[in-house]
């Protein structure tokens, strides 16, 4: 069996590579594990931040709820004459009932809907 110059070169290259790959692999595993651990710490830090942000959100929402309580909203128009008496609460305005007419929802197809159906039929 004859050895060529080329195969000798490959053997010469592979031997140190094989020797180097073991510590490199070990180092890689260690590095990967430490990176995962580092990421876990970072995630926990973020979780802490999220928890503290959630705490603040809860406090602010509670404050908003307190401020939005109907009992806290002033009744500016109440007592300014019975005709114009209005109860303002929760962001809603209730008009004087004497002037209110309640209308039932229109029965049957609405104008736009009817024309649309007609167009489809054509």
């Amino acid at each position, binding site marked *: 069996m004859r050895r060529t110059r080329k195969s000798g070169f490959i053997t010469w290259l592979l031997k140190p590579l094989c020797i180097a790959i073991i510590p490199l692999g070990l180092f890689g595993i260690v590095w990967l594990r430490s990176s995962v651990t580092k990421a876990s*710490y970072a995630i926990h830090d973020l979780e802490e931040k999220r928890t503290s942000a959630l705490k603040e959100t809860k406090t602010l929402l509670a404050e908003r709820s307190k401020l939005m*309580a109907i009992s806290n909203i002033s009744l500016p128009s109440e007592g300014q004459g019975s005709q114009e008496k209005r109860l303002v609460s929760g962001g809603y305005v209730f008009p004087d009932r004497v002037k209110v*007419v309640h209308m039932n929802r229109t029965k049957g197809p609405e104008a736009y809907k009817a024309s649309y159906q007609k167009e489809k039929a054509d």
Partner: protein
Amino acid sequence: MKQGWLNQGRDESSRKRSIILNTIIIASFAIVFFRLADIMVLKNSFYSDKARMQQVKTEDIQARRGNIFDRRGRDIAINLETESLFCDPDEASSNPQQAMKQLSSTLNIEPGVIRAKMSQDRRFVWVDRKLPIETAEKIRDLKIKGFGLVPESKRFYPKGMLASHIVGAVGKENQPLEGIELKYDKYLKTSGGKVQVARDAGGRVLSTGMVMETKGNDIVLTIDEGLQYIVEKELDKAMLKWRAAAANAIMMDPYTGEILAMANRPAFDLNEITRANKHDVRNRAITDIYEPGSTFKIVVGTAALEEKLFPRTQTFDCSRGSIEVGGKNVKDSHKNGVLSFDEVIQKSSNVGSILIGMKLGKERIYEYSKRFGFGDRTDIDLPGEVSGWIRKPEKWSATSLGAIPIGQEVAVTPLQVLRAYSAIANGGHLVKPHLVSEIRTPEGQPVYSFRDDDKKRIISEKTAAAMRDILKKVVEEGGTATSAAMDGNQVAGKTGTAQLVDPRTKRYSKDRFIGSFVGFVPADKPKIAMIVVLYEPKGQSYGGVVAAPVFKAVAEQALSYMNVPRDQMPAKNLQLVSR
């Protein structure tokens, strides 16, 4: 030759050194190997435990109570995140004066109080509980040795006093004390548990990916914050006007039994329940019984109509203004003359009601009282409800037939009276009053929804309609509750004025009364049924004077709030509101 001997000697010496070196190396490796074997195999559990103690920390999974909302999803009870300060007196004893000084100024606590806590012979002492986040941050920045902070949740009621008797409250340890908080505790609370987390030498914690908080189920109430506010506001005005000892009002949907509002006075701030007077915490609407007086007259009226004892045109001679039953003389508030069946109820004649009661007899009065639910709990979902009482006919005295038809010798709760009137309002069904419409998980999945499958018919639709018609007349001219009449919607209802028993004389007092009005509106298709009860009003006692105007004031605002149309539409000045 000489050089060869020398070389031979050197080789020998080198070999010896090599053997010694190799032996040392092998021995060293052997020592390391055996030591490692000792650590890793023989003492494995000892070192594992030690490492675990240093690297693993046990943390609590925070348990939070579920929230409580009103029917429109507004917050009624929520949780606030706070922190509680504790100290380890042993560790904190290194510089106690400085610690006391710093903490007392931050917490606004007397230094003596902190000193007392620091001098306790324990390793864990609470210094102050449930501090706001800002205060906790300030304390953390002080970095005082021997003191620490732990997260805790604090129940917060953003509406303060509103619906206090319904919601109830929790104590310092989040233990339920009253109301919905107590009744539905098993749904609201949740168990936290513990989780182990890894940490490094610097105390930094590794993420576990676990959610460190669990929450109980949320509860949706049937009450409406707007309606509750209207009721409480008007009740406060009435308390002030009549200087009453107490008052309560309940608003209910007569068809479904949903409680829309329930208020008591005096009341208390839910966030300060520890400072509340125990009498103020009582939900009188379900825990206190009283003699209903004239509001009970619907029992004999309805029974007579249902049993077809009289036509509504039947007349009763009440011209004497009094009637004697079992040796006891019962009077009308004023002489009425001859009254028709309708007028007996309209004018709230005691004589007329007793005459109807006598015709009905004990058994039927008792039977109809029970049909209306008197003497039985309504089973509303609140703790502490009482059943009231009505004696069985065999235990009635000679005077009972002159007392029970006019609402004496019976004890009821305001809620029972309201439920009875709701049966007339809805066409004859006895509904189940309730406060919780839905319970759902924090993710929104329903756990429970209220369903009333066995709605019991107690009177016919025809009788209910006739009674509605009669109760409308009570509010019209000539009735006892004209002050409850509304502009735009017809009201049906009944007044009640009951005398309280004087504890000293054991007889009915002449100056202590309970005035009430119970009714529903719009009379023909009611949206709300409501009872208003004022205990011991000063100056006036009649339900038609003290309670009926409260009903009117509340109903006017409530119908506007609920967008209920007027019975008769005005022909001009129209403002269109689509629905």
